[in-house]
């Protein structure tokens, strides 16, 4: 059993994710109230998109300032399909959104394979700025600036008529997030993931090792965009209306912020970053209103704290919160081992890119 566990990535990752699924099922069903489920859904949506972005930016080294726009493609795919064919099952919406966004990612990736650093950032920035203008020009399809309303996915009948829709959406989103993270965790430690890193760190050496650099970069973009598309589709259900105002440049920048705070290139960092992204405004908003400040000040306290946290996190954890936590854990285990004096030598440090 232990050798199977050690040798088979499928068994190892599969068991970890099944365990997580059970924990999340219990939490969303018996522990969380509706409001928490609603927030957890938001965290999971951001986490799916941020995880895709961290594969692209953290692992493959391509900066994207346009992931909000890719989420928009996913959200509009779902919304347009749902408007035309209200009866289609949710899973089909998710798959269709992944497909369209993946194709969009391939197109952006083909351009991206010819661009480096600031030029790629500029091109994706242009996407993030331009795409939200499209719906107003094709209002008959995309509903213009008012957007399209998205009918909630109704829980299946066997769950009972009183089953909360928030809980149902939380289940779906968390399931989608678990599948995404399972697949990405496999990818990151696979030969394909290794090639992503090879291209990031040394394109010439990668080419000499037989890696088609351009193809690898496009592939990273497709995988990353597919995640954004899935997140966008779920985002449409979560907001229940899809309009251009939901996909401003701010969204793209927030995703980038999330992966940097969380730890660039780390999948757990993408989760931590998304958590901070959703919960920091909630907490700071609560704090500001409890301090009895004037409205002008109170309105700006969350922003100020957000900025301080951002700067602080980067100063204290240059490798992100995930990297910081990992090094604290390593430090503690080292202290514990040396105090016992019997343990083996500390293991080789984790690869910085993990």
């Amino acid at each position: 059993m232990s050798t199977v566990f050690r040798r088979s990535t499928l068994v190892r990752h599969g068991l970890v994710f099944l365990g997580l699924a059970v924990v999340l099922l219990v939490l969303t069903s018996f522990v969380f109230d509706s409001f928490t489920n609603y927030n957890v859904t938001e965290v999971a949506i951001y986490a799916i998109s941020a995880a895709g972005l961290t594969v692209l930016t953290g692992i493959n080294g391509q900066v994207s300032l346009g992931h909000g726009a890719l989420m928009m493609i996913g959200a509009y795919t779902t919304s347009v399909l749902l408007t035309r064919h209200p009866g289609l099952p949710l899973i089909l919406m998710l798959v269709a959104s992944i497909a369209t966004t993946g194709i969009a990612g391939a197109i952006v990736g083909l351009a991206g394979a010819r661009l480096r650093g600031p030029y790629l950032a500029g091109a994706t920035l242009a996407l993030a700025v331009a795409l939200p203008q499209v719906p107003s020009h094709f209002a008959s399809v995309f509903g213009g600036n008012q957007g399209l309303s998205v009918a909630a996915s109704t829980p299946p009948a066997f769950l009972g008529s009183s089953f909360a829709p928030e809980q149902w959406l939380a289940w779906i989103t968390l399931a989608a997030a678990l599948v995404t993270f399972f697949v990405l965790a496999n990818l990151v430690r696979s030969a394909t993931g290794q090639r992503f890193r090879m291209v990031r760190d040394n394109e010439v050496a990668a080419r000499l090792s037989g890696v088609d650099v351009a193809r690898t970069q496009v592939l990273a973009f497709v995988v990353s965009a597919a995640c954004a598309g899935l997140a966008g589709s779920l985002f449409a259900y979560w907001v229940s209306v899809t309009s251009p105002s939901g996909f401003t440049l701010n969204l793209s920048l927030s995703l980038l912020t999330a992966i940097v705070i969380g730890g660039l290139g780390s999948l757990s960092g993408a989760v931590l970053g998304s958590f901070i992204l959703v919960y920091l405004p909630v907490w700071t908003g609560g704090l500001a209103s409890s301090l009895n400040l004037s409205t002008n000040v109170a309105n700006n306290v969350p922003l100020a704290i957000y900025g301080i946290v951002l700067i602080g996190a980067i100063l204290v954890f240059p490798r992100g919160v995930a990297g910081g936590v990992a090094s604290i854990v390593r430090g503690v285990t080292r202290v514990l081992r040396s105090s016992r004096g019997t343990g083996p030598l500390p293991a080789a440090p984790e690869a910085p890119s993990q």
Partner: protein
Amino acid sequence: MSSQTPDADPVVLEVAGIDVRFEGVVALDGVSLTVRANQIVGVIGPNGAGKTTLFNAVSRFVTPVAGTITYKGRSLIGLPAWRLAHVGIARTLQGLGLWPALTVLENVVAGAPSRTRLAADLLAWPSSDRHAATLREEAMANLTELGVANRAASYPGALPHGVQKRVIIARALMARPSLLLLDEPASGLSTSDVNELVDLLRSLRARMAIALVEHHVDMVMAVSDSITVLNLGEVIASGTPSEIRANTDVANAYLGQTVAHA
């Protein structure tokens, strides 16, 4: 080359009369080079002679404006650079080019040219694990051959230069090359390391053709079966080490009296 008999080992690489220009500057002018199986060919010349440009032309980083480059009878011109490892041409870089974020073992495994198996990798299919395990075994065998298997778990940045040099050769061997191109393999090595490198190249010669670009003339003289001397982008001599040693043009070039030659 003059010293080769007609029934010698088959030609692996044939560079014939290539011209390379960089924005009008002539980097290589009618350069030819023949590398046969089980042969070590050294390319020497003063700084700026075009040695690395010649390698860059063979490994498809620059495209010559004239001349042909054939590998096992097939033209290399038109082939993308990344394909070379797949057809059995491996090259090391002067600047090492190890991946600092990967362990030594991972760096060597990375040298194996393989197809992307996206679906299997996304689903962590057992075939993906098996493939990775096979490559790790081969990489360990290469590290063992190079005498640095004990460094497999280290990160390259922490290793002495001599060990890193061995790791990049181990990585190049993952392509199971028929032609191994070594860019300055002896640079920065101690005398004893250079001697071990010479022994290593002689043992590798049984399995492949080797071409090396090198500043360390004594090392090239010791190890090469044939030597080509470049100066200012042109071949000024080629032949066996003893022929090159006796060549006055070569001596002049190395003394810097190149104007007289031109």
